[in-house]
């Protein structure tokens, strides 16, 4: 494997990895915000 191929694979892995980590964080935030809003809405 030459440097071009290895760096191309690293770039694709970085794109998918960073998006996966950010997605997980957004999903956690999305779920927490729903719970928070429900708690506040309770009398």
């Amino acid at each position, binding site marked *: 494997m030459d440097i071009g191929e290895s760096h*191309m694979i690293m*770039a694709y892995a970085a794109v998918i990895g960073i998006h996966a980590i*950010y997605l997980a964080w957004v999903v956690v935030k*999305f779920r927490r*915000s729903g719970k928070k809003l429900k708690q506040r809405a309770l009398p």
Partner: protein
Amino acid sequence: MKLWRWIWLAVTLAVLVEGFRVALWVVPPDAAQGQAGRIIYYHVPTWAAMGLMFLTNLIGSLVYLATRNSNHDLAMKADALAVSTAEVGVIFCLIGLVTGSLWGRAVWGIWWTWDPRLTSTLVLWLIYVAYLLVRRFAAGPQMRTLAAVMAIFGYVDVPIVYMSTRWWRTQHPAPVFGGAPGSGMAPSMMPAIWWNLAGWMMWAVFIASLRYVAEYREQLAEQQAGLSALETDATLTAEARR
């Protein structure tokens, strides 16, 4: 999560998978750069998605400033849109810098150089990181107004980044799309650009919409907490007077 969001996610993932397949196995390797040239199929769509996010952030910030004293609900929504798109834009900008650095190491032999395109892009990333830090750590009623003004000034760097390879010819290559006569890509390589451009734009919209909902809910919860505190204060004051 609402049904339309699931459908959008399914279509987005299908487009991204097709983009990945076409970029890796259908289009030929670049004649000059070999396999490293395939980084362009993720690098260019990333910048396009970032541009869309920062433009939406600018619009959200302008709407917030225009409506904050006249239409509170619209201003809250615009503010939530601004912060969510800024965050997604920062993620895309980071990915663009990382893929560009990996590409530079493979083709130029260096990870980084203080070329106008690279430097202006790093400054852009830092501006929006600063915007998010202001949102996170500044307190008080003026925080949102301050952040919106900052976003408007921050956006000035976006056209500078876009034009940098036209104004200054240094290390970064001249624009492939919309550049000088004769620039452009071989037609056999364009499908990988189109699929990934569509896929990453759709992904940006999806993730920003999730983040927007989370942000708006938090703002509503904060507002409700503030109203409850006011009600409690009013009750205690009334009881104390009796």
